[in-house]
């Protein structure tokens, strides 16, 4: 656990200052076609300081973490703040005060897990796949964990000690189509918690692997989607990506200042009245979120950010600096991924809230369209135009599922597409695998129900 070399420096703070000790520990095992290509660990950490002076920040970081190195990093950050203030001379007043508080460590780091546990788990899944499925041309199995520990001392706000573990298992299967073209499908299971608490028995994932194989066998016989604007049902697994990519990025206040379409739409109808979307801090619908955030890296106590309420755009996500610019309240969205990263405005657990429909009824309601089941990557734009990949999907013909489709992409303009949402299922699915990319990577949670809407689908 991180020792506190930070608090003794607080008496030396002159301007608004953050000091953060931070270590990211990873363990990874990967098997490709039965070969163990990765058996690795890393522990990357250190200390950083950020100082605000007159409207700009100075930041510095160093790998060494000791009483002396904290002093050195604080001095370097202060020098950088002075360098900028002298040349830029914005003349801004100090950031508004939030008072002084302290947050306790909620999840304590336990003893390091044995790498052999992950190796055995990975091998077990690989053996299950090899022994059971005969029509595969390749497979990849990997397991990993990322433990983030942070100690934060701020001149104004809430001091914090955070431990945030995430464990992940990934399986990809590849098979050849009848004309010899390889196609793949993958599944990621990721949860908040230690690997040995989340993945207690490989057999618990066997039914998931069976489903993945069954879907891949359909995909290898799949057809190309018919390109154009289509009526679609998105599985709940896609709703989080929609919330994150289509809307979430456009309402991050730094993106708003950079020209996002959301700037002109505050308090306007941007979605169907069915759509309510929230960036949850730590608790959603009575349960702990996939990646709970209680205090951000600017020492702001985290609370939920209402983004869209009954179709109306209600607010943006902020840092302390942008909150002042927009005369809004900071809600704990400023987060840094590594010790050497400064806090940026990031989503936490972004979700569209469930509706009242049943998934089966939603599929039955479509004469000619698509059921989109799983996605890989996604991207957003300042215009609100989003895209995300479709790894698994099916045609819907006369209310019934038809042929599987080959991988494709869907796109749309968020504030137009969301107005076409006319059914939301009454269930909810959360995802927290992968990373959001925005200068730095970041762990995020995303969730939502099944959605019926019009979306542009790529294809032939």
């Amino acid at each position: 656990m991180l020792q506190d070399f930070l608090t003794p420096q607080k008496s030396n703070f002159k301007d608004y200052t953050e000091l953060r000790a931070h270590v990211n520990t990873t363990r990874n095992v990967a098997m490709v076609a039965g070969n163990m290509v990765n058996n690795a660990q890393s522990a990357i950490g250190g200390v950083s300081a950020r100082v605000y002076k007159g409207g700009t920040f100075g930041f510095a970081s160093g790998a060494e973490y000791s009483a002396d190195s904290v002093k050195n990093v604080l001095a370097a950050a202060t020098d950088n703040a002075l360098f900028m203030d002298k040349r830029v001379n914005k003349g801004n007043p100090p950031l508004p005060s939030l008072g002084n508080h302290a947050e306790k460590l909620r999840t304590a780091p336990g003893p390091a897990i044995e790498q052999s546990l992950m190796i055995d788990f990975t091998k077990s899944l690989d053996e299950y796949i090899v022994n059971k499925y005969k029509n595969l041309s390749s497979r990849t199995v990997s397991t990993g964990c990322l433990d983030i520990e942070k100690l934060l001392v701020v001149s104004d706000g809430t001091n914090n000690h955070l431990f945030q573990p995430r464990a992940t298992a990934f399986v990809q299967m590849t098979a050849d189509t009848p004309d010899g073209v390889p196609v793949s499908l993958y599944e990621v299971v990721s949860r908040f918690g230690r690997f040995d608490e989340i993945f207690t028995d490989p057999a618990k994932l066997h039914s998931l692997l069976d489903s993945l194989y069954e879907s891949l066998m359909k995909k290898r016989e799949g057809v190309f989607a018919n390109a154009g604007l289509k009526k679609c049902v998105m599985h709940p697994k896609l709703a989080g990506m929609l919330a994150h990519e289509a809307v979430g990025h456009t309402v991050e206040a730094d993106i708003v200042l950079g020209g996002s379409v959301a700037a002109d739409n505050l308090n306007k109808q941007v979605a169907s009245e069915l759509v309510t979307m929230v960036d949850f801090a730590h608790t959603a619908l009575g349960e702990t979120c996939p990646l709970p955030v209680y205090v951000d890296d600017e020492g702001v106590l985290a609370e939920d950010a209402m983004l869209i309420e009954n179709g109306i755009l209600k607010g943006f996500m902020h840092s302390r600096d942008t909150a002042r610019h927009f005369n809004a309240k900071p809600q704990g969205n400023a987060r840094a991924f590594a010790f050497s990263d400064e806090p940026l405005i990031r989503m936490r657990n972004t979700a569209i809230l469930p509706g009242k429909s049943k998934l089966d009824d939603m599929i039955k309601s479509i004469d000619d369209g698509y059921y989109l089941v799983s996605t890989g990557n996604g991207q957003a734009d300042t215009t609100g135009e989003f895209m995300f990949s479709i790894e698994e999907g099916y045609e819907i013909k006369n209310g019934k599922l038809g042929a599987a489709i080959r991988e494709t992409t869907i796109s749309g303009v968020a504030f137009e597409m969301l107005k076409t949402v006319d059914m939301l299922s009454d269930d909810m699915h959360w995802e927290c695998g992968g990373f959001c990319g925005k200068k730095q990577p970041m762990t995020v949670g995303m969730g939502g129900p099944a959605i019926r809407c019009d979306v542009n689908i790529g294809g032939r």
Partner: protein
Amino acid sequence: MAEITSIAEYAMDELKKAGAQKAACTVSQSKTDELNIEAGKFSLMRTLFSDNLHMKALVDGKKGTISVNKLDKASINEAVADTIALAKSGTADAAEDIAPLAENKQFDQTIGGANMDKLFSRTKDFVDQTTDEFPKIILGECSSQFSNTNFVHVNSNGVNFSNSLEYYHMSSMFSAKDGTESTSFYGYGTIMNSLNTPFIDVGLQRTLLEEAVNSIKTRMVEGKFVGKVIVTPTCADMLWGTVMGCFLSEYSLISGTSRWKDSLGEKVADKQLTFSAIAHNPDIVLGEKITGDGFESQNFDFIKDGILQSYGLSLYGANKTGKPRSLNSSGSWAIAPGETSLADMIKSVDKGIIIGRFSGASPGPSGDVSGVAKNSFLIENGKVTDALGETMISFNVFDVIQEIVAISKERVVDGYSLMPWCCVDGVTVSGK
């Protein structure tokens, strides 16, 4: 440099004492100074002091690798013990190895240290010039930096390489806005060994600012058509990154999913295509000197005149697949220039698009590519006409590079790569 060399040698000795039959260590120390701009205004200066130690140990043919960023003896000793424990817990694989002893060298790619005052003034000039010349441009996240790194790689076969390197880097993200209409975001990055050229005049920076202003009003493709696409250098990764990921990468070869796994020496693309990985070239600012696994880097061709010459394989990948190791591990790629001018290339397209950025899915092993054409313009009857909005494209990269329509004479130099414009056919372009 002497300090990190002794750290690397100490770590190597400790790994051997702890039971590694073969081992490799890389130690680096760096300092980066960076100026940041948000929404067209200076927002942050940051200084990063970085230390890194990466170790690989083989025990009875079993590998363990570890990365830490502490270089004191106690931390190294702990990391050595962890590396050996990792290796012992692994699986024996005869393909695991380290580089053999070759001529050890010390490289120097320094440029005389940082001039932070000039970096600040170049950055300020970029903001001011952009604001003055392109009032409809909104600068988003931009940064400029100077970085210095000292690096040592040693292994238990006696390999000992070192390198000192320095560079300047500038990146910009921006869009254009007029009233409530705005463009997609544009991004551009360059790496430089001096501050002699104003940032706005480096590479394609000014061209992209002009294009952004010209693409505020967009037109949607009606229905869909199959036509030609001119891929600009800023979008080159859509083609060549996909080729690398799907057909040439170590993962695609070891997993057996590459459609070119048995095609070495065979024609895999149009004869106009020569695709190289370049370690040494005057236009590449930080050419790779040492591969990730400890060999001196050399230039090589993946594809020459359409014939597959090499894959992107490390020593492990080469041993595993029985195919040749690639001679550098850099991402500095070059496509050989063609014989057609960009102007003639555009004139030759009756109906198609010119694409500046691609927002799409990570392609699967089939090579199917699908996504949104960003920062793109329609070409009709040999002329670039309207900027495009909400336009999707899809194609199969394995298929479209079999018959490349043309590769431009012109190439863009951005310090990272040497990329021409490339025209391919058979792409489905669709609107709503």
